[in-house]
């Protein structure tokens, strides 16, 4: 890791919020697994953590941190350092710190309690979701100079992906219930990283139901190796595209 990244990671790890985040994840995860007598129920609770809490914390914490780093960025900019290196270091620093928090907080109990295939998928998906929403934070914080606006955009994006998007899909599925829209819906999910993540876990968690009717179509698509690779490629794009857009803007940004 480069030196700037190291400074950022060390700085974030000293941050109390990240410690609290780790702690909450840990308490939640150990809690649900030891309270519930079957691990499936615990996994369901954790699924919501991975799909709601993780992206929310990732996107808001990152956005705020980026805004708060403006001095740091300014200081570094007067030094002989490439702009993209600063931005990348910040991205890696944030991703690594949040991933550490997630893996320590939720990862260990998942590995201890959950069956390996579901647990592994959940960890993988949690890792991707974390990084995707760090990337989205970069996009929302480069979009405006105003910190309050930037955080607002971040929260709105999170709300859109976590809540509104599904509502829209539900509405659409009713509107077009008479048409064969299953395949289109599979494509539409690619536009929401949270949905993509959820379906990847669903295919392991509710494997019996996913074998039936429409589920079969999703299973056909996401269940085989090509589908899983495609899904993770799309998730990777969800990391790359927002970040690269933000990077391009950052290179032209006046400080």
């Amino acid at each position: 890791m480069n030196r700037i990244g190291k400074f950022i990671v060390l700085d974030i790890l000293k941050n109390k919020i990240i410690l609290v985040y780790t702690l909450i994840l840990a308490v939640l995860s150990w809690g649900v697994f030891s309270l519930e007598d079957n691990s499936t129920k615990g996994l369901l609770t954790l699924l919501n953590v991975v799909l709601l809490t993780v992206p929310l914390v990732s996107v808001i914490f990152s956005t705020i941190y980026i805004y708060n780093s403006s001095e740091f960025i300014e200081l570094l900019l007067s030094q002989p350092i490439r702009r993209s290196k600063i931005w990348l270091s910040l991205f890696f620093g944030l991703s690594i710190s949040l991933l550490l928090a997630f893996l320590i907080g939720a990862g260990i109990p998942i590995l201890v309690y959950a069956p390996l295939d579901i647990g592994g998928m959940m960890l993988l998906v949690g890792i991707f979701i974390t990084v995707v929403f760090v990337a989205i934070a970069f996009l929302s914080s480069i979009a405006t100079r105003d910190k309050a606006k930037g955080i607002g955009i971040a929260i709105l994006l999170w709300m859109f992906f976590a809540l509104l998007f599904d509502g829209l899909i539900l509405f659409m599925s009713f509107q077009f219930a008479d048409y064969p829209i299953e395949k289109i819906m599979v494509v539409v999910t690619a536009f929401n990283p949270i949905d993509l993540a959820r379906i990847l876990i669903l295919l392991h968690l509710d494997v019996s139901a996913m074998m039936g009717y429409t589920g079969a179509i999703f299973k056909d698509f996401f269940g085989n190796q090509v589908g899983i690779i495609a899904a993770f490629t799309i998730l990777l794009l969800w990391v790359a595209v927002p970040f690269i857009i933000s990077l391009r803007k950052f290179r032209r940004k006046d400080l």
Partner: protein
Amino acid sequence: MIEINNLSKHFSKLKVLNNVSLSCNQGECIALIGPNGCGKTTLIKCILGMVIPTEGTIKYKDILIEDTYEYRKYIGYMPQIGRYPDNMSIGQILDMIKEIRKTDMQLDDDLFYQFQLKDILFKKMRTLSGGTTQKVSATLAFLFNPEVLILDEPTAGLDPLASEILKEKIIAEKKKGKLILITSHLLSELDDLVTQIIFMQDGNVKFHKTVDELKTSTGEEKISKAIAHILKNNN
């Protein structure tokens, strides 16, 4: 050393710099002066690559700065208001910059000792007064023995003692043949420092003259008076 050609910068509709062309050379100590909002700081930030110009080019030693970041090795920059990560201490900031630069060069820590920063190394940046922050900025600017020093309002906020230390330092560096670019409102302070004056107004360079030229053309002994003279005549 620094060639600026037809530089313009627009912030949406606001034209902050308007077709500025300048040439600054080794051994010169240039005062960049002008009323508030005339574009001094923007010009400096353009030179440092912190603000991307709308039009025009800046060359450092014949290399376009948009192509490179290496040239910043040779520039020491002291910002008008230094902004530093809040929860880092002075020591950490200095260590971090040193580590990032990782240079074999002999470090110039004169200011570090003269400002007695050693005794307050552990202090967090957010607890520092404006003056102390400026001391840190100044120390950083001179630390790597840069060929060019760009000082944005260097003495603002410094107590007279520190201000004097800094001035001594600037003079010392000037004697080493470095290019020094200073912006300041306190024209009286510049008298024994600068060799050239760039006067800016509304994003334009009004004139770029040596101090001697200025004094002879206006018949004034002091820079401040000379400038005042010009402004009066213009209006």
